Structure formats: structure tokens, C-alpha cells
């Protein structure tokens, strides 16, 4: 039986995504976070690095909506500017992971043989290392910086994407439409561009969102430990560093509550979007 009403595959996916209320709300939320980060300077009204020792550790007030930190810097402006770094690190490292994973995964799937073996063993190695430990060591050797962190997180996340792309490639390789393309003389580059990447895009976009969420959380962890974003630049992670003292936790909650909530909600929202995307691009996975 042929039942056809959906015009494009993408249109159908979008329709399924809209049926996912949590994902739709999350998209709105993330859009707001991104906008807030972009227009941080306009929204904050304070220089995030302006020290005002006379006003240090003051609670939320009309002048400082979320209060000030130990050196009197405005917490709200720091939160907004930190959003830039946290989202930036998340997106940049996920991008590294996706690009690397897509290239290596499709090469492994297309060429097969020893190339496939090599790439997959490499993926195993990366996946079997405790990434946090390695990143801590690397940060220790090279010195902590945003760039090191982005590259390190990206390197440890590519295997997930690489395996998915390889799987898609392997199943696609024997499909008749790919054979037909090869019969007209198409080479590996053409197949990657025209057939494999478009087919891998839906599952990869799911992994990519989850990778963004993971990278944001990982950035927060590393910065909290002092191995990520270095002061005076603000990130949600290093803002939480203040919460290392019990006194602060008890008596100055505005210092850690806002970055904590920011990290938690952002990671949660990105994960919801990932779930929604998964159901949207693969209708069989949902009930």
C-alpha cells in the first residue's frame, strides 16, 4: 500500500519533533540563552571584570540583580559573559568531534579492510581511556587554556559519532542507490558528500546535541577544578569555584546558585533537544 502525503523527509521529521513538548520548550530556552550570551554587553549593564571592592559580596539588589562576588564584580554580567564561553566551548568541541567522527567513520566504512580496523581500534582506545584523567594530565602539561580544553574534549568524543557514521556507511554501501551511483563512476568523495553525509546527518545531529551537553558539563567540571577557563575570564565552571567554601555555600548562595542553575538547565535542555531529535529522525525509536 502506498500512502503518501509527506512531501519531504525533513518536513516529516519536523512534524514529529513538534510533538515533543519538552524538546520544543528546550529549543526556546536554548535560543534565549544563546541570545543572552550574544547580547551580554547590552543586557548586563556592568563590565564583568570591573572590580569594586567596596561592594564585594553584596547580595542581590537593584544595582546588581544577582549580587556581586568576592571582588565586587557583577554576578549577572559574569553569568552572561560566561554563557558565551560555556556555549562556545560546548559547540566548538562537539563540532570537532562530529567533523572528525564523520570523516574517520565514513572512510572506515567505505574503504573497509585494514583502514577500517585501524580507525575502529583507535576509537576503542579513545573510548576506553578515562577522559577526565587524561584531560587533567594534558592541561597540566600544556597549561590550562580554553583551546586545549576544546581540543581535548573534541578528541575524546569523536568515537561515538565515528561509530554511527561507520554503521550508516556500511549499510548504505550495499544499497542499490549507492551501487547505482558507483556504476556511473562516482568515487569515495562523491559518495561521502552526496549519499553518506546526508544519510548520517539525522543520527549525527542527535549525537552532536548530546555531545554539546556533555562538553558543557565537562567544561564546568574542568574549570571548577581550575584546569579550564582561567580567571579573570568567566565561565559557569569557574564561577562555581567560589562555592568551594562552606561559608559561601551557606551564607552567599547567589554566588553559586545562578551558575549552577545555568549549567543544569542548559545541559538538561540540550539533552531534551537530543531526545526530541532522536524521535524525530528515527520514528521507530519512539513508541
Amino acid at each position: 500500500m502506498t500512502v503518501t502525503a509527506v512531501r519531504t523527509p525533513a518536513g516529516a521529521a519536523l512534524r514529529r519533533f513538534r510533538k515533543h513538548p519538552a524538546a520544543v520548550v528546550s529549543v526556546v530556552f536554548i535560543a534565549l540563552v544563546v541570545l543572552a550570551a550574544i547580547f551580554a554587553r547590552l543586557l548586563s549593564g556592568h563590565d564583568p571584570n570591573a572590580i569594586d571592592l567596596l561592594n564585594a559580596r553584596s547580595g542581590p539588589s537593584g544595582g546588581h540583580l544577582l549580587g556581586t562576588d568576592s571582588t565586587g564584580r557583577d554576578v549577572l554580567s559574569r553569568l552572561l559573559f560566561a554563557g558565551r564561553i560555556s556555549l562556545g566551548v560546548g559547540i566548538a568541541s562537539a563540532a570537532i568531534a562530529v567533523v572528525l567522527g564523520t570523516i574517520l567513520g565514513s572512510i572506515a566504512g567505505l574503504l573497509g579492510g585494514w583502514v577500517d580496523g585501524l580507525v575502529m581500534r583507535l576509537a576503542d582506545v579513545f573510548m576506553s581511556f578515562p577522559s577526565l584523567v587524561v584531560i587533567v594530565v594534558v592541561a597540566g602539561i600544556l597549561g590550562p587554556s580554553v583551546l586545549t580544553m576544546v581540543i581535548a574534549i573534541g578528541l575524546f568524543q569523536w568515537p561515538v559519532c565515528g561509530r554511527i557514521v561507520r554503521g550508516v556507511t556500511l549499510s548504505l554501501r550495499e544499497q542499490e542507490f549507492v551501487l547505482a551511483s558507483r556504476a556511473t563512476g562516482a568515487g569515495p568523495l562523491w559518495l561521502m558528500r552526496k549519499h553518506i553525509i546526508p544519510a548520517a546527518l539525522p543520527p549525527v545531529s542527535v549525537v552532536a546535541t548530546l555531545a554539546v551537553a556533555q562538553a558543557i558539563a565537562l567544561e564546568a567540571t574542568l574549570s571548577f577544578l581550575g584546569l579550564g577557563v582561567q580567571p579573570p575570564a568567566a565561565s559557569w565552571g569557574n564561577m562555581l569555584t567560589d562555592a568551594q567554601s562552606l561559608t559561601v555555600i551557606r551564607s552567599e548562595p547567589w554566588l553559586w546558585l545562578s551558575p549552577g542553575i545555568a549549567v543544569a538547565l542548559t545541559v538538561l535542555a540540550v539533552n531534551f533537544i537530543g531526545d526530541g531529535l532522536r524521535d524525530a529522525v528515527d520514528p521507530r525509536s519512539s513508541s
Partner: protein
Amino acid sequence: MTSLLKVEGLHKHFPIRRGVLRRQVGEIRAVDGVDLELETGETLSLVGESGCGKSTTGRLLVRLLEPTAGKILFEGADLATLSQRELRAKRQAIQIMFQDPYASLSPRMTVQEIVAEPLRVQGRYADDGGADRVRELLELVGLRPEHSRRYAHEFSGGQRQRIGLARALALNPRLLVLDEPVSALDVSVQAQVINQLRGLQDRLGLAYVFISHNLSVVRHISHRVAVMYLGSIVEVGTRADIFTAPTHPYTQALLSAIPVPDPVGRAERDRITLAGDVPSPSNPPTGCRFRTRCWKAQDVCAQEAPPLIDRIGVGHPSACHFPEVPATVGGA
């Protein structure tokens, strides 16, 4: 004069690998010594049951697979010894159309993109007329060009096969390998596509290698027929040779197994029912490969593989030690 296509001693063996070290423990002889010849404008059908090697042969012809041994001469040139550039040019002249109207078209491309793909791959899209050429191809196979912006899933099985045909014709091939092109279609639509294929052959002077298990369709469309069993050809001849004077017991059994769409006299029909299954191509019988299912098998059949020759002077060869023309076959 040289033939359009000449295949000599074609072999394709797939290794069977086991274990962690992927050691080769055996091989599947999918195609095991096939000779073929085909002229311009001619249809040669390859028939046989699953596992006989007909589809593998087709894929070898379009170089989707590399032969283990043997020569494929196209217009007199050996494809294996051609330079990269010459091969690229020759390869465009041999195209393939597949069986599955669903799997053979990308779900992520519009009809326009699908039909244009071969031209773009070869960098010929603009030179060949771009969108106009695609429109012309769609009209050639009987589709409305207005539909070119739609996706393949919006079409019925028959229409999808036409889209696949348009794609195969895009590079102006001289030889088309048709791999079960109508097997997945409903009967009422099957006839449309067959007529289309015949019409195109006359108009464009195409040669077809028609791969099918459906002997009624083969009988309708072929000029010549090669019957395959376990990787080799057991009998080859003109359509009349194969359908009215088959001398190989396997050909006779195949013809006799086809259900006749006429209930009159069904009780009296004599059928040759073969016992057993096709043996595994990884461990084929010695001598004649058909002997395990053959009612004529003698000791010699187990020892000596019968060569494909015309032993009894019927004008076409068959690979059987004891060929004979039956009294009546398949209702013909």
C-alpha cells in the same frame, strides 16, 4: 567485426573468512568460468535460480565488482588493461538498472537530482543541457517532467523503476545491464515497463543483459538466453533454441516448473519436479554441478565436468553429457 561485449573465462570468487584473524577458510565460487557474447541492439538474458551467479555476473560487467579472473572486452577493448581515463569513458557506456524500486532510489534526493546524478558525477551536467536533459530523459521513459521536484517515495513502484531507467540512460549507454527490473512490480505494471524497455531498445539501439528468474518475461524480451546453474552457463542459445529445443535437463526442469496461467488441462500436465535444493557454491559437487538433482546422472557426471558444446547437432551448445531434445516442453 568485433562484438559489442565479449566475456571470456569470467570468474568471481568471494573469500570466506573466519575467526579473529579473518583467516580465509574457503571461497564461494559465485561466477566460475563464464563466456558471453553480445551484439549491438541485442538482448541476452541470464536466467537461473538464486545463487546461480547471474547478478554477480551483471555486477562484474558494470565493474561494481572486480573479477577474480577472466576478460571483459567492450567494443574490442579489455576493460582490465585500459588506462584510468579510457576506462572512465568506456564505463559510461555500460550502465545498470536494479530490481528494487524502493532501495534503488535515494530517499533524500528529488527525481531531478537522481536523474542528474550520473551527469554531475561525470561533470557533464551543464554540457549535456542540464535541466533540459533531465526533462528529456524523463519524457523518454514516459514520466511527466513536471514531477521532477518530487521525492521518489511519492511515486508508485512502476514509476520508480522508470526513474531508475532514466538515470541509467543519462550517460547515453550502449549496453544496459537490467538486474531483475520488473520482478518487484505488480503484474499490471510489469507489462508497461517491459514494453518500455523494448521500445527504448529499438529507438536507441541499446543492447541489454537482462537478468531474471521469470522465464515468461525472459521468453518475451530476449533474443538470446543463457541458463546459469551454480556459477556457470549450462546452456545458451537463441530464444527459440532454449524455449522449444532445450537439451540440458536443468533447462527442461526450469521450463517445466513454471505455472501455466491456464486451468484447462492442468491435471494432465506432466511436470519435471527436481528433487532437493541447489548445493552451496562454497562446496559445489564434483564433475557436473547439476548431477545431484539430475534424473539422468551417471558415473561419468561425477567425474567429468561436461564442457559447453553442441554434442547432438541442434545448433546450440549445452553442458550435459547426455543432451536430448524433449518431445514437448513447457506447453510450447
